[in-house]
């Protein structure tokens, strides 16, 4: 038998389930057994190749092509085309870690309830999306020609990315687990995660693992020493605290830096949404180099960590939630940089973590070409505030004067200076006249996918709730113990994050269309709008609400006891109000929708209730809103009198009164009325 040679390209475990995009029954390779049941889905291409000599005269599989090494590894039949390769030892546990339903405690339930539960779970190969409620059509390849094309594609040793591009629809709509009720993960997300995990595990220590053996949970558990797997859920902030609107380019800059690190650690980083993500590592060294890379780029790291041996994550163990157990851990600040014990004056005004050795913008200007020697001499010798443009040659005067007018001097450390130099100033805000509205979105992975049994609130996380709801609604008979043990697997989180990013993109495009040159996109999750009238705030909420209801309609049906994992924070003020104050509110946005109107107050409500609130605002007379806002300014009691004011027939005038306090707190109603009034 051919062994894997050293020169062969590294196999990619992402391909292991590619056969699931084929409708084997339609192609005629999955038949009914004599008892009437269908045969096992032959998605490992076992019907297309000889089990004896790996020849494939009919289907022309070329098993020497790299993808086949991840496919022709028949765990159950125990046949492997590359019996001497360790790839199986990396890919198999990766597959277990990225699966979930039908495994672990849930698989025990399936075993216990046997046929009873199997009958109640119909075969559903199309993925059901928990947050849209959309059941995907079955888009599997269903003709012989398509199967032959897929085999030819795999024979050409394509990369996984090329394969994703070609078969995206089929991969995204096929459920990883085809049992109805559990068909909630896409093969696409599952394969991506398995590929990453297998590459990380390949770097772990596998002493004692016999390459020719068929790895099972027992044989992995028996390994000594155990391969390590470190899971890390991180949130990032940064040291620099931008005050001025022109410095807001830092968000885009830091996002690019994070992107670059994520690409460098592409196998480790499983998902990233904004400045939050999940990563896995095979060693402390590898995790340390990731954290140091983040810190060196100026990030402040806070994280939840699980550092365990591989066998402790595997479904046979109590911790059957695989890497999702990381969400149960407490949050800690994480820092591996040796910060100096003492810093001499002056300290960097931006990060306050290093001595300032640079002067902005003086040093920056002195490094620019085109100045006369006289100007250069002045820039190098004089303090910024002492520079007199009249002493500067006329050719340089206008340019230097504009810098003097725009900037005061700042003492910066090397890092902040470099950051400032490479961050183009945000100029849009300068041209706007009146108010600015900052909008920040944030996804909380704990609220999305944490486990109710481990959460302090004991509430279902969003995906737990939606999945239980789907199981109940689909009419399947599911034992209560299975519902109790239900947990969210990581690929669903990855699927959600992809849709979240698409939502962010969509909402930003819609805001750009609506507000045109009054829109500044500051990062994936942050943007700023110039408002001409304060009641445009409601147009913005309307746009966000519309995009949200398209992307996540099921999240609008969450009961009050289940938190929306996506926070939407809006902060409105006069243009000149310092961004620092906005950012304090936006950095850790509260649940659901929160609106801060600087100088007026804060309104909070559930996005699901926005339609009701909008209706109440629309039918309210401007004079009523004005009266309510003015009265509430004087005192809450007076405001409440106005809120519940009745006409001669005893009818309460304000529609708002029906919403307070169940939908809106009085304070929130006051703030919204105030803005509607303009």
């Amino acid at each position: 038998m051919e062994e894997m040679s050293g020169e062969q390209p590294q196999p990619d475990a992402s391909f292991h389930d590619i056969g699931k995009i084929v409708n084997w029954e339609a192609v005629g390779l999955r038949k009914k057994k004599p008892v009437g049941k269908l045969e096992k889905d032959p998605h490992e291409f076992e019907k297309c190749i000889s089990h004896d000599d790996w020849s494939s005269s009919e289907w022309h599989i070329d098993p020497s092509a790299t993808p086949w090494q991840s496919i022709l590894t028949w765990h159950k039949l125990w046949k492997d085309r590359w019996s001497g390769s360790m790839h199986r030892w990396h890919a198999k546990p990766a597959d277990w870690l990225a699966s979930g339903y039908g495994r672990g405690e849930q698989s025990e339930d399936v075993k216990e309830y046997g046929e009873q539960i199997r009958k109640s779970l119909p075969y559903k190969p199309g993925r059901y999306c928990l947050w849209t409620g959309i059941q995907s059509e079955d888009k599997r390849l269903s003709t012989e020609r398509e199967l032959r094309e897929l085999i030819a594609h795999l024979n050409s040793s394509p990369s996984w990315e090329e394969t994703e591009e070609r078969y995206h629809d089929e991969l995204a709509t096929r459920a990883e687990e085809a049992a109805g009720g559990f068909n909630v993960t896409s093969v696409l997300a599952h394969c991506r995660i398995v590929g990453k995990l297998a590459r990380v595990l390949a770097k772990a220590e596998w002493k004692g693992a016999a390459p020719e053996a068929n790895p099972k949970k027992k044989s992995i558990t028996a390994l000594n020493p155990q391969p390590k797997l470190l899971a890390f859920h991180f949130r990032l902030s940064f040291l620099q605290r931008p005050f001025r609107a022109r410095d807001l380019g830092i968000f885009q800059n830091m996002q690019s830096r994070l992107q670059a690190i994520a690409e460098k650690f592409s196998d480790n980083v499983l998902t990233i949404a904004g400045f939050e993500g999940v990563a896995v590592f095979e060693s402390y060294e590898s995790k340390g180099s990731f954290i140091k890379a983040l810190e060196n780029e100026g990030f402040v790291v806070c994280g939840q960590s699980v550092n365990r041996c591989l066998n402790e994550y595997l479904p046979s163990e109590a911790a059957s939630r695989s890497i999702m157990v990381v969400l149960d851990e407490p949050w800690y600040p994480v820092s591996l940089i040796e910060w100096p014990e003492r810093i001499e004056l002056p300290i960097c005004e931006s990060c306050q973590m290093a001595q300032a050795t640079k002067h902005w913008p003086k040093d920056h200007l002195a490094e620019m070409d085109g100045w006369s020697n006289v100007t250069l001499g002045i820039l190098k010798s004089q303090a910024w505030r002492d520079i007199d443009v009249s002493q500067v040659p006329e050719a340089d005067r206008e340019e230097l004067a504009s810098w003097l007018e725009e900037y005061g001097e700042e003492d910066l450390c090397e890092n902040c200076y470099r950051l400032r130099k490479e961050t183009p100033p945000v100029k849009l805000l300068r041209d706007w006249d009146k108010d600015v509205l900052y909008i920040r979105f944030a996804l909380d992975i704990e609220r999305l996918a944490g486990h109710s049994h481990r959460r302090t609130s004991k509430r279902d996380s969003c995906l737990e709730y939606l999945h239980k709801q789907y199981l109940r609604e689909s009419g399947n008979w599911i034992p209560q113990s299975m519902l109790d043990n239900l947990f969210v697997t990581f690929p669903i989180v990855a699927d959600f994050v992809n849709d979240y990013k698409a939502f962010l993109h969509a909402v930003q495009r819609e805001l750009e269309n609506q507000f045109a040159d009054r829109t500044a996109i500051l990062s994936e999750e942050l943007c700023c709008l110039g408002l001409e009238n304060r009641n445009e705030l409601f147009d913005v909420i309307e746009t966000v609400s519309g995009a949200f209801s398209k992307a996540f309609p099921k999240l609008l049906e969450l009961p009050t006891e289940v938190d929306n994992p996506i926070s939407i924070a809006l902060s409105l003020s006069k243009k000149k109000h310092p961004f620092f104050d906005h950012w304090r509110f936006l950095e850790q946005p509260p649940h659901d929708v929160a609106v801060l109107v600087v100088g007026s107050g804060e309104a909070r409500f559930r996005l699901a209730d926005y339609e009701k609130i909008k209706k109440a605002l629309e039918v309210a007379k401007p004079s009523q809103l004005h009266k309510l806002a003015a009265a509430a300014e004087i005192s809450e009691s007076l405001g409440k009198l106005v809120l519940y004011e009745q006409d001669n027939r005893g009818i309460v005038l304000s529609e708002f009164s029906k919403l307070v306090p169940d939908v809106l707190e009085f304070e929130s109603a006051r703030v919204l009325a105030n803005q509607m009034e303009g």
Partner: protein
Amino acid sequence: MDKTTTLNGKAFLHYKLESDLLCLGERIRGSIFRPCLDVFTYTGLVGALKARFPHPYRPIHAVGRFVSKKRQMLTFSPRDRACETSVVPLQIEYLSDVEAELYVELNDFTSTWPEQFILRLGAMKSKGFGECRVTKIGEVKPPEPTCGRLAVRLPDDQKVLEAVGVSEVKAPRYGYLFEPDHGGTGHYVRALFEDSYVKACPILLKGDEEE
């Protein structure tokens, strides 16, 4: 080192601190906006206490924790008397209706302090900010250290940490605090900022974060 034992026999004076207007300026030059801290710094408290109870040799160790406060904004235009002009207005953030707990290490010097005194703390003192009414509640023995998140800013100095009852720093969140030198200058020292995960006396920890 078993740092828990270093607390044996130690006690703190427990005071109630009240202030109408308190401006604990962040050391950021934010142009026209001066933000206010919402935690006490060890250096700020000890500096104010040393100014109130000057003694050349006796060390003072003190920490504080807010009980309640309101964040407010003041627009203020400093006047240049020489030019007879007012400069660009500043927006200054401050805390009002402040109630806080103040703990001072008990020794034969601090034990002589009065039951009530006025402490001047923070910035803008010349404009009436920073006057704190300090009233003694009693003496407390530090309870057993527990793990939690720091509610104050402390220099990362073993002597200080021992004095105030931090027995182990599990996950630091570093920043820097200004420490004055003789002669009107100073330097910055590495410090544990709020939210550092430590094992310490509960009086130093954020209440809701104790684990």
